[in-house]
Every structure is written in structure tokens, then in C-alpha cells.
């Protein structure tokens, strides 16, 4: 197992190298010029050229790529073209809100979706099953920003229960933190809940038809024990896989959710950086997201062994 983990961690290095090359090349080829954005619409072409030179954007592709890789290898992600702040500092400032949002969404989604899926499978064909499936279709169909605006309108403006926007750091207290995040987490979690609930239902239906479930029933096991101990544990591998894949969905959804609820997270940092062509920031954030995604996949692989002892690495 340890050797496997080490191998997988080492395997992330070429993956990250390919991601780095891909991101850098894509940004190099993409239209847009941060120097022109900095100069403003009143600038002369000479001003833009001077700014481009001062930012080093007039250097050849290979020189820029080499210099960036060299800095990354020394732990330096560069400095934002616009704010002059180190990219690592900007990421540090933004990582907590995004992590908080994703973790809360994950907890919320799993704790709602898995019981929903189990319930739907158990009550297959009943109104409960149909209600769960209808909710799943709705969750897939309604865009995150629509859910976000609706929630903000009802719970913040009309009922005045929760704030419209913003983020309070966890260090300022659990309840203020939760107060700011609960609506965004529900908005972001909609698609995720639908996805997990559907896969849980489908996998549970398959497992509930297995011989060993019939045996458990014959032995007089209770319904709860059959559903959660015998069936769910054996249905867990595909569910865990979907949860892992869904992390990418969450990262994408976080960009929209953070904009709607004005949460200063990495999603908004990415969008702002893309609009301004702040290359060092885009490169830094994409590298981080890629690393997180690779890491999540590794964790998912390791979690498999907890649910299925037959899996060995």
C-alpha cells in the first residue's frame, strides 16, 4: 500500500508537468494582452509596448516558459501582473472560502443524497421513488445561478434569515461562517445531490437484487441493517467514484456560486484573472486545481480498499 501511494504521488509529477506545459501554451496562444488592459483605452500604442516590455511579455515563448518553470521549481509561482502581489499570497488569501464552500457542499450533498438514493431504491416504483427522481431531474436542469438567486431572494431579502453575500472566516466563529455559506452550499450542491442520489439508487437497486441480500432477509435481518450494512457498503464503490468525479463539477460550479454570492474564493480569482489576462495567476490556480484533482483521485482509490477488502494495491 505504502509503495503504491508513493508511486501514485510520484506519478503526479509528469501529470503536473503536462498540465503546466498545456496551460502555458494555451495562454500563450490565446488572444488578449494584459499590457493593453493595464494601459487603458486612452493609451497610445507606444505606452502599451513599454508596459509589455516592462512585464517581460515581449520575450520569446521558450524563454518565458523556461523562466516560469524554473521559478515554479523554486516554489515561486510568480507575481500578479495587476496587483503586484505574489501568486502564492493571492491563493492563500482565497483558498479558505473555496475550501469551506466545497467541504460544506460535499458534507451537505453526501448526507442528503445517499439516504435519498437508498430510500428511492428501497421504495422503488412508489411516489417516494418518483419524488426523488423528479428532484434529481430538477437538480440537473436548473442552473446553479438561478437556484442561487432564488435562495438569496427568499431567505435573505424576503425572510431576512441569512446574509445576501460575502464570507466570514472560520476563525471568526462557526455560526457566522455557516450563515454566509449555507445558501451557496445548497445552491452549489443541487447538481451534486442529484448526481449522487441517482447513482446511489441505481447501484442499490442492483445490489438489493443479489442473493446475499435475500439470505440476509431470510436470516431475519432488519430493514435498516440490510439497507445500510449489507447493501450500501457493497454499493459504495461506484458512489465513491462519482463523489470523486463530482469534485471537478464542484470546482466548476464554485466559479459561478462565488460570483453570485460574492464569496472571495479561488473561482472568482480565476475568472478575474482570465478576464484581465493575468497569466501568472491563471497558471498558478490551474496548476493548483489540477493538483487537487489528482490528489482527490488518489484518495478515492485508497478509499476503495475500505469498502471492498478484495481491492489490494
Amino acid at each position: 500500500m505504502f509503495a503504491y501511494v508513493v508511486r501514485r504521488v510520484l506519478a503526479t509529477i509528469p501529470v503536473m508537468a503536462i498540465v503546466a506545459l498545456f496551460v502555458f501554451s494555451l495562454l500563450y496562444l490565446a488572444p488578449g494582452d494584459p499590457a493593453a488592459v493595464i494601459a487603458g483605452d486612452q493609451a497610445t500604442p507606444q505606452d502599451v509596448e513599454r508596459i509589455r516590455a516592462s512585464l517581460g511579455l515581449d520575450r520569446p515563448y521558450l524563454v518565458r516558459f523556461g523562466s516560469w518553470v524554473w521559478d515554479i521549481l523554486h516554489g515561486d509561482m510568480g507575481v500578479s501582473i495587476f496587483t503586484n502581489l505574489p501568486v502564492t499570497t493571492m491563493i492563500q488569501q482565497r483558498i479558505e472560502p473555496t475550501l469551506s464552500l466545497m467541504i460544506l457542499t460535499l458534507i451537505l450533498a453526501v448526507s442528503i443524497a445517499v439516504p435519498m438514493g437508498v430510500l428511492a431504491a428501497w421504495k422503488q416504483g412508489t411516489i417516494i421513488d418518483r419524488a426523488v427522481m423528479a428532484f434529481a431531474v430538477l437538480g440537473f436542469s436548473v442552473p446553479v445561478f438561478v437556484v442561487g438567486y432564488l435562495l438569496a431572494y427568499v431567505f435573505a431579502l424576503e425572510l431576512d434569515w441569512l446574509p445576501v453575500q460575502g464570507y466570514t472566516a472560520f476563525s471568526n466563529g462557526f455560526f457566522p461562517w455557516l450563515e454566509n455559506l449555507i445558501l451557496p452550499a445548497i445552491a452549489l450542491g443541487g447538481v451534486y445531490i442529484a448526481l449522487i442520489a441517482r447513482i446511489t439508487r441505481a447501484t442499490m437497486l442492483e445490489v438489493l437484487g443479489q442473493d446475499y441480500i435475500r439470505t440476509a432477509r431470510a436470516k431475519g435481518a432488519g430493514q435498516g441493517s440490510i439497507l445500510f450494512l449489507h447493501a450500501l457498503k457493497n454499493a459504495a464503490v461506484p458512489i465513491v467514484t462519482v463523489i470523486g468525479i463530482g469534485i471537478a463539477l464542484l470546482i466548476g460550479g464554485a466559479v459561478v456560486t462565488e460570483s453570485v454570492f460574492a464569496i472571495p474564493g479561488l473561482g472568482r480569482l480565476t475568472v478575474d484573472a482570465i478576464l484581465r489576462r493575468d497569466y501568472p495567476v491563471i497558471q498558478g490556480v490551474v496548476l493548483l486545481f489540477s493538483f487537487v484533482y489528482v490528489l482527490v483521485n488518489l484518495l478515492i482509490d485508497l478509499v476503495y480498499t475500505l469498502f471492498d477488502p478484495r481491492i489490494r494495491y
Partner: protein
Amino acid sequence: MIARRSLLAAGAALLAAPAFSQAQSRVLRFVPQADLGGLDPIAISSNVIRNHGYMVYDTLYGVDHQFRPHPQMAAGHLEEEDGRSVTITLREGLKFHDGERVRAEDCVVSLRRWMRRSPMGQVLAARTEELAALDDRRFRFRLKSRFPLLIDALAVPSNPQPFIMPARIAATDPFQQIRDPTGSGPFRFVTSEFRQGARAVWERNADYVPTQAGGSGLTAGPKVVHFDRVEWSIIPDAGTAAAALTAGEVDWFEQMPAEIQQLLGRNRTLLLEPIDPLPLPGQFRFNHRQPPFDNPAIRRAFLHAISQEDFMTAIVGPDPAKYVTGVGFFTPGSPYASDEALAPLQGPRSIERAKQALREAGYRGETIRLLGTTDIVSTTAQAQVAADLLRRLEVNADIVLTDWGTVAQRRMNRGPLEQGGWSCACFATSGMDFINPITHLQLRSDGESAAPGWPDLPAVERLRAEWLEAPDLAAQQAIARRIQAAAMEGLPYIPTGAYYSITAHRRTLVDRVKGFAIFWGIRRA
């Protein structure tokens, strides 16, 4: 229904009501039009950074609403040698936020940096033989010839402004950003609370001594601050910012699209009004280097069809109080605005006459590539009107709509369309940039050095130079009228009207200084 938050608030209020409400009343919570994307108002041209600049830095002179200069950091100035030597003396007791005195040397180094980036500053630099500190409180311009606009230049409110910084900071290359926001203005920037893209905070500078000099309004007169803190919340989504204003989470929302204005206009606790008495002029700009707009007759053919009303209603909606038509090359309401030579833009619009003029001008079906944005309300709406106009004129139109980052780069392409070039584009600019012929860079028409579009109109350039020598306002206004006539002939761009930027804040906020987001003067009633 009793809301949970109301209960919590009521409970908290019982415990700490006086202290809490007093503290809250001393904080102004503001939503800017965009993120504070940097801290250097000289290196980056941005109205949001300008607003930060006026909080943190001071200028030697400010302007009132008639754009007349008045002393701000300066105690006054003395002209000698028939105006070829101008000595400026600083007020007593000026201090930077780090406690250091403001010295004449700081002004000299700051002005040198500014002069390399500002259009007005570049004109001043070209006329300056020497700029040097005489002692701690006095510095002197030795000019090649008398320059009547020297003091106006030092008060200019157009980007970038001549802010005074400590010499150690102002020594930075003007194309590199400074990192230290130490100034001597009425606010200090709280670096430790700055979260780029989320929040920026300023505290009142307790050591700031407002000028006693006359003049008030805009950047002139005493800058009296009534809040201990100003907190900016960066809320990129206008709907969310409007909801935050409605819910009382913020006090002031700087700028919003028309549909949000309608929504907020129904709320009686809010006041919606133009942030600036000057509207923002729009432009339909031509690329003079490439066919077909290298032909002036083809440019002029568009005058028959351009409807300023169409362009402006697309931005702000049908309410005529929110826009101005009959707009020329200077911002309506500014000293040089006039109706000189604007007849071709007035009267009934005619697509048929424009088509005929295009044929007579020799248009042969060349591709016309319109460059437009999709992410800035004013330019996006104008680009859509322009695209419709090109279709109705039945020209060979290629409409390219993309984000501002791409447009900003692509408009720099001087090449032919096959190499990614462009033919025409729509822009909107702060009204303060178009208040005189020098700060108005879109009017500059010296070919390669002009703004993208690169108009080469010697008549306009001669008059711009002449304007600099005019002895008084009446003479300047007369020349400005001739500049407008020459521009209407050569058409660096066609003015598409001007619109007011609407701001919304609580009615309990009073005495706001009109112009832009200015944080002195404003107070809670």
C-alpha cells in the same frame, strides 16, 4: 413575521446598541464598479484606481465643477520672467502617512513620473527646461516658453492624475507598479485588510489638514472626511450588489446597468442619481489605416445613418433624462462642448442616404470588421447597435464580439483584416477624459502615435497645438470649436452620444461630492 436575524439583532442591540450603532455610523460600506485591480494610479489607467488615488494621495491643485484650478497642497505660485519661471510653494504642515514631511523634492520626483504617463504631463514635459526643488517647500518649473496651462495641468482630473508620493516611491519606473501606498491624502490605505477581488479598506488620516483655499466641488476645496473607515466590498454581480444594498449590507453601490436601476428605483430608502454631472461619451471609431475607412468619404457616409439616440438607449434604456444626444467631440457640460459642425449628426437619420453616399464614395464591398465587447455594458450595447447598423447598410460586415481583454489587444493590430486587423469599434470613455483637446486622446490625430484607429489629420493636430497657446478661456473655446469642425470633417470617430452613470445610495447619506466616487464631504444625516 419576526425574522431570526431581527431577533438576533434585537438581542445584540440590547447589550451593545449605543456603541455598535455609533461604530457602524462611522463606517461607509461601498460597492465599486469593478475590483481594485492595483494600487498605482500612475502605472495603471483605471477609474477605480483613480478613486483610490484621490483617497490616498493629494494633488498640488484641484479643480471645481467648472474645471477651474484651486490650490490644494500648494499654498500658491509665483510667475516670473514673463511666465517662463513658475515657483510653487507648498502649504505648511503637509505630512505623509508615515509621518514624514512632504517636501518639494517629493513633488518634483512625483511630477516627473506623472509627466511620462499623462498626456497633459507629456505636453508639460516637452515645454519644461528644468524642474527642481529650491528648498523643502518650494520647487520651480523653468519653461522653454510661457505655458498658460501649467496650473491647469497640475490640477487635471483625467487619468492619470498628478498625485504626490514620497520621492522614494515616486522614483519607480512609471511603467512598473509601486507597491507602497503611502500618500498624504485624507485616507490611509489599510494594506493588512486588503483582499484583492474581495475587500479594500481605508481609514481616515487623522493628521490630514484640509486646505483653507477657496473653491469647492470635485477635487478642489477642503477635503473634510466624516467617516473613520471606508470599506469596499467587491461584488462582481450587479444583482447581488443590488440585493446587498436593499438588505442594508452596504450603503452605496457605485454603478449599475439599466435593469438594476429600475429595480432599485422602487426602493424609497435609496437615492438614485447620476454620479457625475458629466455624462460618458460614446464613440464609433474607425481604423484609418485599412480599407475601406482609409477613405474619408466612406467614413462620412456613416454620418447619415448614425443615430445617437439608438446608441444611448441601448445602454441606459428609453428614459431621455439618462442620456444626451447632439454630442460632439467634447463632453457635454464641459467648457469646450459646443454644437459646432454637428449638423450632419442631427435631423432625420437615413439608411438610404448613407447607402447612396457609400456608393458615391467608392465602397466596393470590402469587408468591414466590427470589433465589440461582450462583457462591458456600455460598449457591448453600442457594438450591438453598430452591428445592426452595418447589416441595415448591407455592407460586407464581419462582426467580432468578444471579451474586453481580447478587444484591448486586437484593437492594437494595425494590419489588414487577413492578419487579424479591424475596421471599426465602439468605446465609451469617462467624461473627464474628454474635457480638453489634450487629455482627449481619442481626438489625437498624429497617425502612428495616435490611439488605435491611428487617424492622421494634420488640421486637428495643428489646432490642438494652437489651443495650448491660447491666452484665455474664450480663445480656447473658439479653438475648440474649430477642432470640432476639423474632426467632423476627418472623423477620427463618430460621437455616439453620452450617457449618465447612475449611482445608488441610502438617502441618509448626504453632501456627496458629484463627479466620481469621492469619499470626503459625504456624511450621514
